């Protein structure tokens, strides 16, 4: 397989799998059950692939500089938090604090994801 495609497949699949696992566990801890969990799953399917594709394209192809890369990742994460919060807000009957939930779940998945990456690398 083409090395770039292999990298893309691995990034997308691992990232989506990890994000789903972490955010669903986070939502369970936050007391969400049943339909609310399905919504969390759906929202992550919505935001994760474009976010990973954007970060791979922006950091790998357009700006291969470490400082710019970190800024871009932060900007993409911020956009993901906003989109997810807005989507959660439209299901207000399941999510009373959409912004807080979105921020907490994404922060958890970002921190745990980065930690796992570091553990694998070192």
């Amino acid at each position: 397989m083409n090395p770039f495609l292999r990298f893309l497949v691995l990034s997308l699949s691992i990232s989506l799998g990890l994000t789903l696992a972490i955010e669903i566990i986070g939502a369970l801890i936050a007391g969400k059950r049943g339909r609310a969990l399905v919504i969390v799953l759906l929202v992550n399917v919505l935001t994760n692939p474009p976010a990973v594709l954007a970060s791979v394209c922006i950091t790998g192809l357009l700006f291969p500089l470490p400082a710019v890369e970190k800024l871009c990742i932060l900007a993409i994460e911020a956009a993901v938090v906003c989109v997810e919060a807005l989507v959660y807000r439209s299901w207000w009957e399941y999510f009373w604090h959409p912004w807080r939930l979105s921020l907490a779940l994404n922060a958890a998945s970002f921190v745990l994801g980065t930690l796992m990456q570091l553990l694998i690398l070192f």
Partner: protein
Amino acid sequence: MVKQRGMTAIYAAAHFAVDFACAYFMYRALGGAEARLTALLLYNFCAFALQMPFGVLTDRLGNGRVFSAAGCALVAFAAAFEELPLMLSIVAGTGNALFHIGGGRDVLATSGGKAGRLGAFVSPGAFGLFLGAYLSGRLPSAPVIAAMCVSAAVILAACPCVKAKRAGADQLPMSRGVRIKALLVLSAAFLAVCLRSYGGFLFSFDWKTGAWSWAFVMCVVLGKTLGGFACDRFGGALTAAASLTAGAVLFLLSKNPVAGCAAVLLFNMTMPLTLRIAADALPQDAGFSFGLLTFALFLGFLPTYLGLPAPGEEWVYAAICAVTLLFIFPALRGSRKA
């Protein structure tokens, strides 16, 4: 109303883009793949059959735009599996199903008993499939992926949130008689769609090459669009009777490309009508009724896929038109759109 028309226009444009992207990725990946047939079956199963369970989910949760946008994101994700055709089929098919059920449920739930907007939503897909297959070897994949991400963003930003209909205290539970009637209507609509899908895969004309293949696809698209508006203007019974009878006669002359194209246009006119009939039979479950009919599309695809004898003759096409009419009439009688 203007808001809902805008929503239908956005979903229709996205429908074109999603079907374009799916056909583009599938044809690109399956060019010479050994697993071509398995991949095709997997794709069709995910794209059509999965809409039924997803439909139940949209009816419970509402907000179909999020399902649609997630579907667009999954189709973009599928691009990464270019060298793994089976994975690509599953991811692209599931994305396609999520998009269709989200958009279809929202359009059905807000169409106010009309069929025009259903036809407008459904029709661009055929052109997207055709063009995606045509351009699969001629276009780089980056713009297609970008189009999917933009579609997801536009749907999320511009389409209204259509809430789930909840059974309130004012709504009486369906009586046994009403339930049986709904079941009969749905069965008839289901069989009509199975047969129409089978017919769609069966049609093969010697003249369907070059410019005539474009004309053929345009007739499919136009037929679905016109059918919805004709149902609203003239009623379902008249539209079905006129279009399928004239279609049957023209299929007998379909060695001639003009007659063949006209027959295909007329044959496709009942498509929005069957959607309307199913949605009217289950007014609280627009998503499920939409998904049920797409499952019928999947069943209609199977005989051709399994290589069962396919009699590609004019009289068979005419007979399919006539039998479809036989299924649609009882369905119409049972529904309030007659």
